[in-house]
């Protein structure tokens, strides 16, 4: 009894009941303090080595593992000891902080070099995974790469254990420690590098152990008197502090995890799985973003200014990911007249400003020239002359949420009609449906239309050589578009252009993927480099198919909107809502006959509909694989079920069968293990227990034997089954040895005379209920009786 301790703490007595006081320490013994310390150290060690070591093992980074494990173990032991008392916890954390600071400063060269070494190795893997030419590279100060990483890992083990210990705290917060530790593994797993099995076991054992401690409210340390008394006042006596139990639970989890990881590795080898696995839709969709993150860090995920569909009057490179809201920006009322795309131009870029990453129209000559409407005049003349192949159209544009500006259809003269949000304007336009008769277009005055900035010359020249651009302007445009289509995939998440990098150069040399602004800007410089006057244009583009699908037919006289030749067989007035999904950038090139006309160089976008899916569709897509998505998109679902899990089950059916066979083969092993355990029990039992074990086995065997015997002897199956169930149940439910022995005698299992049976009952009672051990003679005698019965 620990009365002095109680007095010291000045704890009041606990009233267990009226007149019954709980005095002194509830704990009479301090069982398992060391074991508990080891358990806590073990799961700290497992979590830290499992996550940090697992990450490095996934990337096959070489370092002195023994040093890492040793330092992790020491740090884990130290951290585990911190919870032995409150004062030590406070002082201990201060000490470890001082130690970490001191070692961090002393070894900063090695630690930073090792850290950079790890980052460089990860970066190399990431570059390979993203198939990116760009690679983040940090300068390592220490030549010996492995040594520096080893030092860094030892240091990280110390820091990791301390942080993990703090996160777990006294309350075994498993989520707090699971999330960061799993996050470490997300990096390699995302990059399709898997940690070694040992690390998976370590991490899982660590997390599960913390979890079970939490769920069982198992204290990480022996509760102090105050806690115990507080609980006791709530009619709860805490005695759940057992180092042996905690150690056994840890071992049980470790054994289970090891067995399962081994079996999984046996039947689903990691290499085979990695070869066969299919990417999830979510991962495919986020790869661009992750690549941006990898290359540019957090900044690569940010949009630096608001845009409409990624476009903002010639500003470039500040948009990491185009987020479309598909809300109507403009409402167009017009009569469809062509199968081609209808462009509504709002911005013209004349001069490209490298590194400022924007298109400018500051040059006065260029500005005037950009809004010149000589082509519109010539088309109007042709229409008024009444020739076939010419037309005059009117388009009423209502600005719902777009920026204030002009939205000119090709070709219009109303360059001054600005439309503010909430207002409308009607543009008269003369579409180009046939060759323009008569004189050629007005010659160009500004030299900007062929200007390629010096900073971009090298990248543009290299690209032209790479793409093999040559021939007439039409041929060049076609080749360029095809090359973009083949080599420069379209994405709405290209990532922002890094600081101090030029937008076009970065697109052409490093990133090689983007959306319309990237293609249009680059194409303008490329075409200029090839001697073709070109300029950058922004606005909205509406495809004929979109009009056919989404436009609403409205009441109105067609002749009020359209006169002349139409390429469509029927004419009617429609209203179409153009959203930010229609925002577009394109190229205008100059032709001596036609003047300026729009050219499309942006590759076709795939998976447009995916962006419109709801969160539930996204969830459903989780279960689809890359192939399924392609099948669905292509409308061919003849391969597979469309469900990755079912497909996986189908493809792994032989393995499952094989696994079942192995499991069946494990049955005898299981039986042997059980027998071994039973034998162990028997060997370590005292004489009384030995007798009881023998007797129990005999009863079980006899029950089973009796059952078999009756099954053989009586033909009526159902009746026998019923009868035997009762028999077996009877013997196991009998409350005392007298009844059991009587039953055994009745069924001729025990054939001895009454005296021997009485002796057996007496000895069994003595063995079971007496504090004294039975004598060796009694054991021998009763064993003889039981042995006879067993035979």
């Amino acid at each position, binding site marked *: 009894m620990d009365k002095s301790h109680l007095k010291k703490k000045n704890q009041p007595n606990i009233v267990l009941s009226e007149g019954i006081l709980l005095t002194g320490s509830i704990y009479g013994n301090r069982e398992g303090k060391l074991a508990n310390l080891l358990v806590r150290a073990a799961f700290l060690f497992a979590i830290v080595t499992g996550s940090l070591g697992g990450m490095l093992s996934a990337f096959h980074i070489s370092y002195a593992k023994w040093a890492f494990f040793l330092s992790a173990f020491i740090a884990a032991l130290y951290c585990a000891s911190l919870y032995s008392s409150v004062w030590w916890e406070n002082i201990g954390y201060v000490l470890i902080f001082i130690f970490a600071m001191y070692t961090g400063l002393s070894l900063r060269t090695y630690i930073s070099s090792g850290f950079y070494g790890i980052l460089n190795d990860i970066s190399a893997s990431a570059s390979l995974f993203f198939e990116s030419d760009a690679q983040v590279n940090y300068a390592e100060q220490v030549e010996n790469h492995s040594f520096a990483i080893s030092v860094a890992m030892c240091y990280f083990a110390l820091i990791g254990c301390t942080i993990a210990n703090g996160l777990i705290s006294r309350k075994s917060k498993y989520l707090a420690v699971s999330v960061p530790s799993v996050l470490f593994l997300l990096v390699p797993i995302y990059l399709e590098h*898997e940690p070694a099995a040992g690390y998976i076991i370590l991490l899982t054992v660590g997390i599960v152990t913390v979890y079970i401690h939490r769920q069982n409210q198992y204290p990480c340390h022996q509760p102090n008197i105050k806690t115990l008394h507080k609980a006791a006042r709530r009619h709860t*006596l805490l005695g759940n502090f057992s180092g042996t139990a905690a150690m056994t639970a840890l071992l049980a989890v470790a054994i289970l995890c090891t067995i399962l990881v081994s079996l999984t590795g046996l039947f689903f080898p990691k290499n085979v799985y990695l070869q066969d696995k299919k990417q999830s839709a979510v991962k495919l969709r986020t790869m661009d973003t992750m690549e941006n993150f990898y290359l540019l860090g957090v900044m690569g995920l940010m949009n630096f200014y608001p845009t409409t569909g990624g476009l903002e009057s010639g500003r470039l490179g500040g948009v990491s990911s185009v987020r479309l809201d598909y809300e109507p920006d403009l409402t167009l009322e017009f009569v469809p007249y062509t199968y081609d795309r209808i462009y509504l131009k709002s911005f013209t870029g004349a001069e490209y400003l490298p590194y400022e990453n924007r298109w400018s129209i500051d040059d006065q000559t260029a500005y005037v020239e950009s809004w010149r409407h000589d082509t519109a005049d010539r088309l109007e003349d042709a229409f008024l002359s009444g020739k076939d192949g010419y037309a005059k159209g009117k388009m009423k544009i209502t600005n719902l949420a777009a920026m204030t500006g002009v939205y000119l259809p090709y070709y219009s003269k109303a360059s001054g009609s600005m439309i503010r949000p909430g207002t409308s304007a009607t543009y008269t336009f003369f579409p180009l449906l046939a060759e323009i008769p008569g004189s050629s277009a007005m010659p160009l005055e500004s030299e900007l239309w062929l200007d390629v900035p010096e900073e971009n010359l090298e990248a543009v020249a290299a690209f032209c050589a790479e793409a093999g651009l040559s021939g007439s302007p039409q041929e060049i445009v076609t080749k360029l578009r095809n090359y973009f289509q083949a080599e420069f995939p379209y994405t709405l998440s290209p990532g922002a252009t890094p600081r101090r990098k030029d937008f076009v150069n970065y697109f052409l040399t490093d990133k090689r993927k983007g959306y319309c602004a990237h293609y249009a800007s680059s194409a303008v410089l490329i075409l200029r480099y090839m001697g073709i006057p070109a300029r950058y244009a922004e606005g909205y583009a509406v495809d004929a198919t979109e009009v056919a699908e989404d436009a609403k037919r409205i009441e109105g006289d067609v002749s009020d909107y359209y006169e002349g030749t139409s390429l469509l067989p029927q004419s009617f007035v429609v209203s179409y809502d153009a959203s930010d999904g229609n925002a577009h950038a394109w190229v205008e090139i100059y032709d001596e006959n036609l003047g300026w006309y729009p050219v499309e160089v942006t590759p076709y976008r795939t998976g447009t509909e995916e962006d419109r899916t709801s969160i539930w569709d996204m969830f459903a897509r989780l279960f689809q694989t890359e192939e399924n998505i392609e099948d669905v998109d292509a409308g061919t679902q003849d391969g597979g079920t469309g469900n990755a899990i079912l497909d996986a089950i189908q493809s792994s059916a032989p393995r499952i069968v094989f696994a079942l066979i192995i499991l069946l083969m494990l049955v005898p092993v299981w039986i042997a293990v059980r027998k071994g355990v039973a034998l162990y029990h028997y060997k370590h039992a005292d004489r009384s227990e030995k007798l009881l074990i023998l007797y129990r086995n005999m009863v079980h065997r006899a029950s089973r034997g009796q059952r078999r015997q009756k099954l053989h002897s009586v033909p009526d199956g159902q009746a026998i089954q019923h009868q035997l169930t009762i028999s077996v149940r009877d013997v196991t439910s009998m409350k005392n040895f007298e009844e059991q022995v009587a039953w055994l005698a009745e069924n001729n299992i025990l054939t001895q005379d009454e005296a021997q049976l009485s002796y057996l009952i007496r000895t069994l009672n003595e063995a079971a209920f007496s504090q004294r051990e039975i004598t060796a003679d009694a054991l021998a005698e009763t064993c003889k009786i039981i042995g006879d019965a067993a035979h």
Partner: protein
Amino acid sequence: MNTEKKTKKIHISVLHLAAFLLVYIINILLFLVFRGYTFLVMWIIFTALLPCSFCMAWRLSSYIEGSVFTEKETAGPGEAVEIIISIQNRSFLCALKSIWYLNIGNSFYGTFDHHKLILAIPPHGKKLFPMNVTMTELGRIVFACKECSVSDLLGIFSIHSDCAMESCLSILPQSESTVQASVPEAHSGVAELSESSRKGNDHSEVSDIRTYRTGDRPKDIHWKLSARNRELMVKERVSLSGSEHVLLLNLPNQKADAEKLLSEGYQQIRELLGTRLTIRLLVWNQNLFSFENYSVGCPEELENAYCQIYCTNLFSHSSDLLRQYMKNCYPQLNSYLCMTLREDNAQLEIWVNG
């Protein structure tokens, strides 16, 4: 060996189940998004963990046996006693949490409180949980546990089963040598049992009924009961010999009064025993509707008598009709001693029977 199968009930903790499902679903989502081998393995582990954990708890609940014992059977008020709860586990399985529903109280006064004892169960061994308790009231202190539950490692399932753990401790009044007590002077020849011829000189009374043993007198056979039980039953008689002083304990039904009477009465009876008197102690038992009687010739016998008295609730011991009952049950007595509470003090009085 206890071959009786335990009745088990499974309780599911919804909160813990939800927590597990949360972890499980996060794992599945991580697997579906990343398609990583690590998450596949973790998925398998978490899937297997649930049944393994349940089976472990289910099996373990069959292998554990609990007992409670005290270092001594009697104690005095204020004396510290160690109560030890021992949990024996005969398997290699373990549990980090088991709850033992304790019922602790004084059966004499009928005051009980429920407590939950939370214990971790180590594999193949004993877990001892000692409690230092001090009793401040007289009576029979009972430490009992009728139910226990073993939680699985994940904390989702708890297997409830019955158990029979009980230990009793009698709290006896402390003897003080300063108290002087004497039989009232008038007791001589009055308080002693007066022989009477009304019952044929057989002044014994039936104290118990038991099965027949060789040597029992045929006249003691309880024929009616024997016929009913189809087994010979005999009446066990206690003789009220003339050398014993009959002392009736007139226990009040108020706890504080009873406490006082028992304490002071204990002292006085011990003093009487010191004068080499033999006392036949009588206490009314409402349940039996007769008097419990104890032959007390020495302090040890007095302690035993008190222990027996404590076995029955105080309220069953008190009655306002004691005189009447005495007259009916012991008509052969002319008078007897009675320990009763007068003006907040225990007084030894002579009561005339009738």
